[in-house]
């Protein structure tokens, strides 16, 4: 792949090929990488820091680091793993700063979030969406990150383990625990998600 790759060709190349182009100094490939990852990272970082403005700043910083440290990427890992790891480190750093500033209540029902992450949605998720988002926000950081990477980002266990730098067994355990914690937190809303669970095709439902 030469530096003269055109726009169309660039959008078809794999992440690793794109990184090779970026490493060789192709700026347009970097723009393509930003376009590929900006929303994915926002859905990851945004749900960790629960504030879109801060999340965008962190993602911008993530891309700056990617650009500055492009030569440190090795094809040993997936490009996405490398990018998620950088973003996660920045998000964790932000959370540490926040912990110093304020006390976070574990009671998500009484907690007033600074900025609500809400979006336009339709269908079954409309009523449960904001509630589950608040519930996710109150999970301990390790469980929240694992849950977001698995159930929102839809990444495989192995990649989550590489991003979090923990064994796969730990990832499975955290995801299991996070789901159990969410189930406990959502008990007051049972009616809503019983209703929802009826509409899920893969659910073996008795209701």
């Amino acid at each position, binding site marked *: 792949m030469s530096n003269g790759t055109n726009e169309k060709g660039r959008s078809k190349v794999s992440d690793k090929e794109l990184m090779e182009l970026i490493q060789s100094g192709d700026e347009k490939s*970097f*723009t393509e990488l*930003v*376009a590929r990852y*900006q*929303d994915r990272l*926002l*859905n990851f970082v*945004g*749900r960790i820091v629960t504030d*879109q403005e801060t*999340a*965008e700043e962190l*993602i*911008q910083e993530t*891309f*700056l680091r990617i*650009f*500055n440290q492009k030569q440190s990427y090795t094809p040993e890992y997936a490009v996405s793993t490398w990018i998620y790891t950088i973003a996660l480190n920045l998000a964790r750093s932000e959370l540490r700063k926040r912990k110093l500033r304020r006390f976070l209540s574990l009671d998500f029902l009484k907690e007033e979030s600074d900025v609500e*992450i*809400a*979006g*336009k*949605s339709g*269908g*079954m*998720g409309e009523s*449960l*969406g904001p509630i*589950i*988002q608040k519930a*996710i926000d109150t999970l301990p950081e390790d469980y929240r990150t694992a*849950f977001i990477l*698995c*159930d*929102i980002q*839809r990444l495989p*266990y192995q990649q989550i383990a590489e991003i979090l730098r923990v064994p796969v067994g730990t990832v*499975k355990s955290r*995801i*299991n625990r996070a*789901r*159990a914690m*969410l*189930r406990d937190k*959502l008990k007051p809303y*049972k009616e809503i*998600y*019983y209703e*929802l*669970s009826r509409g*899920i095709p*893969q*659910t*073996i*439902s*008795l*209701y």
Partner: protein
Amino acid sequence: MNCRGVSRRLSAFIDNDLSPGIRQAVEEHLQHCLSCKRQLGEYEAIVTAARDLPSLTVTDGFGERVAMAINSQQETKEVLGALRYRFTIAGAAFMVTSAAVFFLVGPPSTDVTSTYSGVQDSLLRQSPAAPDFWAHPETKVSSFPVPEGSIPQQAIDSKSVLRNDSTVRIEEYVLPDYQRVKETVDRKF
């Protein structure tokens, strides 16, 4: 498999991460256990709701802001690079000048005495006609002004003020007293 065993495998069951044998055992349990089935429904509802969460999208112009941040960073780096280059050149020039001064003029002295004499020398160099202080007629010991009458005539006559004055004092005051004391002691003992 009992309810406890099934309950802790429900998360893996949803993710299809169980071995075929265990999966079958869980499925068989779920066929007749209402409680575990309800629990599975709750887990699936949570997972589905999380997957259906509205996708967040970056605000308009995000890509441009990233590009601007990178450009601004590059410019800052260039400016800092240029400054570093200039400081390096200036530093090297200073070092060379210092080294030249050191070898041509010599090191600055740290000895107080020599520094003092150096100052004295430099003062003398500034006024080469400066007279020897002790050689000046007004400061010469021999010509120090002595008030008239302050030295007894007897002393002046003997040409040695100190010795003759002392001799006179001994002859006039000490010896008569000594004689008197000696006579008194001789009389008594």
